């Protein structure tokens, strides 16, 4: 059993402490917006915020996440108000297949939280998610649009 605080709610989950947080979120908490891509913290599809920091949830165990504030893509909006990254993604039609975009959006939201006006170099360093469709140009443009708003 583990208690996880996800998107402001406490979940008491029947899950072993060494289970990757990704699978506890997807299968036990039932929040499937966070995606599985590699399981080895390479691709970033499973990125969530843990205490505000973008983390690859496949590489974090449930025991490590207990007691911390976890935010998933489902918790990024405030009620009916989408997060500015989500709004920009819609306005600029960023996603193609969209599978990597939950993780991409979470990584970008964390970057903008830390650096509201990131340079291209900041983006290059912070955004290391894989997108096989190749949405990188739209991702970069959307980040700059948000930063200049």
């Amino acid at each position, binding site marked *: 059993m583990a208690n996880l605080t996800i998107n402001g709610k406490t979940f008491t989950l029947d899950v072993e402490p060494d289970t990757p947080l990704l699978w506890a979120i997807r299968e036990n908490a039932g929040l499937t917006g966070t995606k599985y891509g590699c399981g080895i913290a390479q691709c970033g599809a499973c990125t969530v915020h843990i205490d505000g920091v973008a983390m690859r949830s496949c590489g974090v165990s449930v025991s490590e996440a207990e007691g911390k504030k976890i935010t998933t893509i489902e918790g990024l909006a405030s009620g009916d108000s989408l997060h500015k990254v989500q*709004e920009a993604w*819609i306005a600029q039609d960023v996603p193609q297949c969209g599978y990597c975009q939950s993780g991409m959006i979470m990584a970008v939201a964390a970057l903008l939280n830390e650096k509201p006006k990131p340079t291209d170099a900041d983006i290059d360093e912070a955004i290391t*998610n894989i997108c096989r469709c190749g949405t990188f*140009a739209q991702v970069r443009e959307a980040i700059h649009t948000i930063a200049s708003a």
Partner: protein
Amino acid sequence: MNKHVSPRLNRRAFVIGTAAVGAGLAIGLDIPFGGPAVVRAADGSPEVGAWVVVRPDDTVVIRIARSEMGQGSLTGLAQLVAEELECDWTKVTTEYPTPGQSVARKRVWGDFSTGGSRGIRSSQDYVRKGGATARVMLIQAAADAWKVPASECTAANSVITHTPSGRTTTYGKVAEAAAKLSPPADVKLKDPKDWKLIGKGVKRLDTADKTTGAMIYGIDVKLPGMLNAAIKDCPVFGGKLKSFDEAKVSGMKGVKKVVKVGDTAVAVVADTWWHAKTALEALPIVWDEGDNAKVSSESIAKWLAEGLDDAQPAYVGNKNGDAKAAIAGAAKKIEAVYSYPYQNHATMEPMNATALYTADKCEVWCGTQNGEAAFAAVLEASGLPAEKCDVHKVMLGGGFGRRGQTDYVRQAVMIAKQMPGTPIKLLWSREEDMAHGKYHPITQCKMTGAFDANNNLVALHYRLSGQSILFSLRPEALQNGMDPAAFQGVAQSGEAAFGYSVPNLLIEHAMRNPHVPPGFWRGVNVNHNAIYMECFMDELAEAAGQDPLEFRRKLMGNHPKHLPVLNAVAEKIGWSTPAPQGVYRGIAQVMGYGSYVAGAAEISVTDGSKIKVHRIVASTDPGYVVNPAQVERQIAGSFVYGLSALFYGGCTVKDGKIEQTNFDTYNSMRINEMPKVETVMVPSGGFWGGVGEPTIGVAAPAVLNAYFAATGKRIRSVPLRDQNITFA
């Protein structure tokens, strides 16, 4: 206003609604009072022809048979229907009919397959007619109500106007009456010059849910009582499952059952996938690997190299004059051997499917590029007839050709059949996905070019050796043993025609099929053919002492569609003016999937091994551009996919198995490595070419030719990581 954008793509509701009623057919026939048949959608709204449902609130639901996997065809196809329908685009939504419904209605929605860059070009005609048919019926219904001739009425933006009287009504108000009319026998389509929506870069219809985590992919499907399965197939292709020791894992947490899947695989079924995967890794398995365990990349390379020998048999795909004689008598000749490796599709979402089997029905929920092929796989694996099966398509987390195959669908049904009544979600681990791809075929190519005394190219011999996809996947498409698709990009004529005139030409294919299963990988045979031909074209230009662009142009005089696209790229990259200090250029062109494309790159190279790509310019003439914003994204995406394969890709074989296991050994480009692709669209009209794939062909050769310009060194094999060349 920060409200959620309401999801205009109501696929989830459609899928779940279909599941909830527990039947394959949510669409039923409603025949009131013995009158004409009205077909109704699941919510009761009437169909006005098979492609269009109109709700009372004027919402127009457009049926889409092809699959959306990020390439934007769903939006483009809806634009085609809406253009002729003259409906209000802001009230358009879409839904997928199921293959079962289509089969039950004599394939009213045509082909479901979504590959070969055919989504739009192969259905544009009948989907536009579907829209036009509905418009005619809606106008007729209004005219009937007003007791006026239909010819006095017009429609625009879902509003019908009786011009003489000025009376108006809306589609939603007349849909019921329209649905009862007989469709017109024939409809006239608009002249392209009158298009209002086709050619506009309207926003995609499926974006909102992709930003909130709400979009449902195959991996996200949930059904009541569902269990999860993890699978391991014999890592040596062609090998078999000998035995496994279920007792070692049956007590592990969550484990429900361990099942054999066909002759080659074993799956663990558990409450969660994590439990299933953990138990599968602990399961002792004995494989009968068979003879293929002796095969390696080295043995394959040796076998393919033997095929480059003229003494070996080969199929001739394109020929004029006598190339061998002209080469023998030429003033000068050059020769080079190139190679291209296996590539995994590595879709971001690993293969998966959810199956529910009972004694009298079998349903599958999955992402697929070919709903009908998936449906056929369900029939075969379940043993049930068509009327008891169906496939519910959900969004694909990438396709690139991989999800046109149905191996994962078949496996899910084979597992579910062993647990009747329990829905089973089968998910491959990334490692399983890397080990059991349908790989880009492996080839080598020897090219010989010959010049006369004035450095005119008089002969070209292009000898390809390697794998045929059709041999493995569609043997019925072979022509007397020859794979015509092997010549994509260098073919005599057709949708992938060679773009140069050479007086003596011989293009042939020595087919050699190793045991690694090949598949259609974005761009397919254009990938290696364009690298071989376009890099060698640069070698020929160098041997002739000519500029690579000018050398090509001289050979393209009789190719009036190829040449303007190359010129457009040359102009945009500024070929006639010097590149910035330390920056070098490469250029390439090819035809594939009915479209003419070209690309150019500007790169700099540090220490001969660190490449920085500064600029990429790409051009296409696909005839008509339906949605320029999406075409631009497809072109850029094709470069990311193609350059990822060039720099980081390549699957190698050891002991009969693929060696790469995950993105740490099969990497993909990141944002810092990819410049913005500058696109130049030069649609010349009059034909419908593909978009998703063609430009991938020029991605790698443009960069490789620029690398030569920068270093004076030719790279003749892929990937670059094997040559210790990487991004700066």
